[in-house]
């Protein structure tokens, strides 16, 4: 593999890692709220989170390019804050990836939180556990499988992202040329050997990740005496 390809591998790992961390920090409270709220706006928020599942990446990429551009709302905000503009930067890719991978992190977490019985949280409350304590000492540990699924899917889905990155990235080596774009470039230029090396590596990566996920989250036999 060439140095350029290795740089694409490192960049992709960095992007996926950063995106996953941001998504866990943003997504866990959001998922907790979605799981517990009785708000009438819940269907609207849940739909907004799920939108990237049904929208083509070209739609997301197009709106990101326009809104983060110099005339766009986000672009004017980031410029006013002295951050410059986001397209063609690593930070811009993180923003795009966070939006694009959002449902893959929030939905498993939300399902895990919804599965936690209210009486456990109420019991914790009678033992004088405050809301934060209940979240960190009861909810998060019980939601561990959901947390694992959310992290792995968030990471893997960001590695597998293509359309949004292609549209807002500008294909800059070392800062926005991620693996999926590098593969595309090799294929377009008829460099099939280089494309194979990267593509086969990604197939193997995806398989290993998903097998690991299914093994780790395999439902265990319930201990005797417990019933629903």
């Amino acid at each position: 593999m060439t140095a350029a390809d290795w740089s694409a591998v490192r960049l992709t790992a960095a992007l996926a890692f950063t995106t996953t961390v941001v998504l866990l920090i943003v997504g866990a409270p959001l998922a907790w709220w979605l799981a517990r709220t009785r708000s009438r706006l819940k269907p609207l928020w849940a739909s907004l989170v799920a939108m990237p599942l049904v929208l083509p990446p070209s739609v997301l990429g197009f709106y990101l390019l326009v809104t983060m551009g110099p005339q766009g709302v986000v672009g004017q905000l980031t410029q006013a804050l002295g951050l410059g503009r986001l397209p063609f930067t690593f930070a811009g890719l993180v923003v795009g990836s966070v939006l694009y991978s959002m449902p893959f992190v929030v939905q498993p977490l939300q399902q895990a939180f919804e599965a936690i019985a209210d009486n456990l949280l109420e019991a914790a409350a009678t033992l004088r556990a405050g809301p934060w304590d209940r979240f960190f000492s009861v909810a998060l540990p019980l939601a561990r499988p959901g947390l694992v699924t959310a992290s792995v899917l968030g990471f893997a889905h960001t590695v597998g992202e293509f359309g949004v990155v292609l549209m807002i990235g500008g294909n800059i080596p070392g800062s926005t040329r991620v693996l999926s774009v590098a593969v595309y470039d090799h294929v377009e230029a008829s460099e099939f050997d280089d494309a194979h090396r990267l593509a086969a590596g990604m197939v193997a990566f995806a398989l290993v990740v998903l097998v690991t996920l299914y093994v780790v989250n395999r439902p265990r036999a319930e201990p005797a005496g417990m019933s629903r």
Partner: protein
Amino acid sequence: MSSIPERPRPLFRPYRYKLDFTMSSFRRALLLALLIAGAVVTSLGRAGEAQVAVAANFAGPMAKIGEGYTAATGHTLKVSVGATGKFYSQIVAGAPFEVLIAADDETPTRLVKEGLAVPDTHFTYAIGRLVLWSAQPAFVDDQGAVLASGKFTHLAIANPKLAPYGQAGMEVLKARGLVDAVTPKLVTGETIAQTYQFVATGNAELGFVALSQVAVPGKPVSGSYWLVPASLHAEIRQDAVLLKTGENNPAAVALLAYLKSDAAKRVIQAYGYGR
């Protein structure tokens, strides 16, 4: 708890239709109209259709030329727009294109050599002109001095590996001795069309695009541009060729003939291409 299972209720009640086969004269007329419309549509289908792969820089003129072609021949076109390099890979892989209207002369030559295009059908339909364009008025001067000014953070260019206009842009930077200074600011579009979009949205302050994208006949030029002197880069000879798949399709053969007509030449010149 009763042990007798309840009889399942039918989901749908049976309903008896009474069909009326007698027709009012209005309905009869409607049916006749539909039959005629159907016959017209089928005969249009028979008039022939050619599947064309068109280089992104030529998308605008091609739409105009397509209208004239259909009016003159009765045939219709199915146009795909993209990067010439991509079309090459797709044609090698068996894409159903019948005519390639490329952005260079190398790709058609190569396809002829590899037996995928029909020899002797290959000709230069236009000479491409490169411009350095910005969506902001008065940003690009008419000497291209802005390239050396450092006034910009991003310069958009089509992927030089895939797009002849990208290659020409790199040659201009080389001629000006700016490759090292500008390379960190380059953002690469997959096609000249994506490059245009980076500049049009203002995300890149300027970029190398085709004159045909900026100088659309009948529309005022937006922003500012420098028409790069043709001496600063190798000539962008744009060739068209009949592909093997279209050898026996009269519509495909007619398109290449129409591309050489005066009507087509006028459109090509109006978009600023040399000949």
